[in-house]
């Protein structure tokens, strides 16, 4: 970054020239617009179909309204990312991720490929369609709060402008940018860091799956997705450890008859049927 003495901003014209001279710079974490200009193009994807490309900094967040049939790939660049995710029906956002239904209806607490991410309205918001991270994910511990981060990392840094921002603080901002408020932040899920449960109910942190692994979500409805990239709340390390999160998304097709997840279980089958029924009624 240039020092303050490198800017000439004593007049409006000079300030305008100075501002415009900043264009074209790059940062380690930034969106790539248009998405096809990503410096990290997925080798298996036609760049022309990309709709979202971004690197999210540790302790930062992103969000997007996505079309039904969008495939989103999250990549844990260093093995230290933790993508906390919330999903909403973009058109009727009071329909949103319901973590309890997501695990109970699937009879499975641990998330991996094939798991439908359910709303509380009996439909699928998105499906986990690929998981290179071997289930290093979590549907039990949610994200961090200011109170938790203050207790763990010391007071004062848990707000978005601090050095140890909490997932909830970042979700609050991401939600606000879609007209959603603090009441609209239900329990979230996280990718790339997880826990396992012992017989006595105690949880143990698994950590990540190593650098370079990806997980993919397929939007089954038009969705708003909120993503906070912050340490997992069960991460026992006393330091705020988090790595960059890469996001790419492209146009694909929603789950349909013949796809393996369409009738992977009786419960998932009826969830996809309900989703298709909703889409048909909407005339989409």
């Amino acid at each position, binding site marked *: 970054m240039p020092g303050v003495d490198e800017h000439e901003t004593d007049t409006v014209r000079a300030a305008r020239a100075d501002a415009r001279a900043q264009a074209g710079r790059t940062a380690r974490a930034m969106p790539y617009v248009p998405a096809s200009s990503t410096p990290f193009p997925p080798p298996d994807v036609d760049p022309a179909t990309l709709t979202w490309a971004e690197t999210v900094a540790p302790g930062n967040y992103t969000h997007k309204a996505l079309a039904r049939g969008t495939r989103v790939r999250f990549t844990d660049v260093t093995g230290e990312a933790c993508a906390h995710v919330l999903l909403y029906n973009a058109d009727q956002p009071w329909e949103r991720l319901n*973590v309890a239904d997501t695990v109970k209806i699937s009879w499975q607490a641990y998330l991996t490929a094939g798991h439908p991410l359910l709303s509380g309205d009996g439909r699928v918001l998105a499906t986990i369609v690929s998981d290179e991270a071997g289930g290093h994910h979590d549907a039990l511990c949610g994200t961090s*709060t*200011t109170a938790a981060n203050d207790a763990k990392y010391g007071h004062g840094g848990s707000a978005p402008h601090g050095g140890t921002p909490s997932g909830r603080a970042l979700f609050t901002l991401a939600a606000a940018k879609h007209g959603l408020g603090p009441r609209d932040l239900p329990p979230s899920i996280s990718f790339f860091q997880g826990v396992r449960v012992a017989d006595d109910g105690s949880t143990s942190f698994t950590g990540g799956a190593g650098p370079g692994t990806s997980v993919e979500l397929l939007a089954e409805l038009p969705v708003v997705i909120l993503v906070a990239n912050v340490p997992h709340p*069960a991460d026992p390390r006393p330091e705020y450890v988090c790595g960059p999160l890469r996001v790419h998304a492209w146009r694909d097709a929603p789950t349909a008859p013949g796809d393996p997840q369409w009738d992977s279980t009786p419960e998932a089958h009826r969830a996809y049927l309900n989703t298709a029924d909703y889409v048909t009624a909407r005339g989409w």
Partner: protein
Amino acid sequence: MTGILDPASYAEGTVLDLAGPLSGGEVTVDEVIPPRAPWSAVVPAGHVLTLVDVGGNQSGDCLLYNARDTAERYSVPDTIAWSGNVYVRTGTVLRSNLGRPLATVTANEIDRQDTIGGACGKESNTLRYGHHTLSEHGCRENFLAEAARYGMGARDIVSNLNWFMNVPIEADGTLGIVDGISGPGKRVAFRAEMDVLVLVSNCPQMNNPCNDFNPTPLRVIVTAGPPDGPR
């Protein structure tokens, strides 16, 4: 149908045990929640709510809110992350979405209480059991109806507690609602750490064992807590 406290109103062999409060102090609330019905009250800070499983293995779905600002509400993941355990037992602090204590479990007469199984509902029943169950009443409907009395709606209904429900998680992550480990007159009690709005749905589910396929009443008793402390 005879009275809700008449065993003849329920499946053959039903035993009803109203028990009593698990905490001392003046009784400020003492009500029976009929089968399938919602219930709510504000419990002041320091007061203790005892829930009695009158007929045994009757799930009491429960949500808590900061009574002064209901945007702060019970959070399953914060409760689990802070306690390091997915089951709720004596001593478990029931945390809000801000990580703050809403209530503390002060007594519990079964091995463990559930907070990962969520609430049943009409739409989710269609996934779990088939579309023929859509007409059946659910806890989500009870929560929505009761929350509406306080100006709250769908976005205020989040993942909940299930008193007296049994949800084991196996080593590979398989989980589900199985036969209960409670019985007639078994109780749980929690002390409000702030003024809390408590919503309870006496679960109407008839398609799994969370109510022993025999919905029965719950008794809710609120006591002012000390001077004589827990009983």
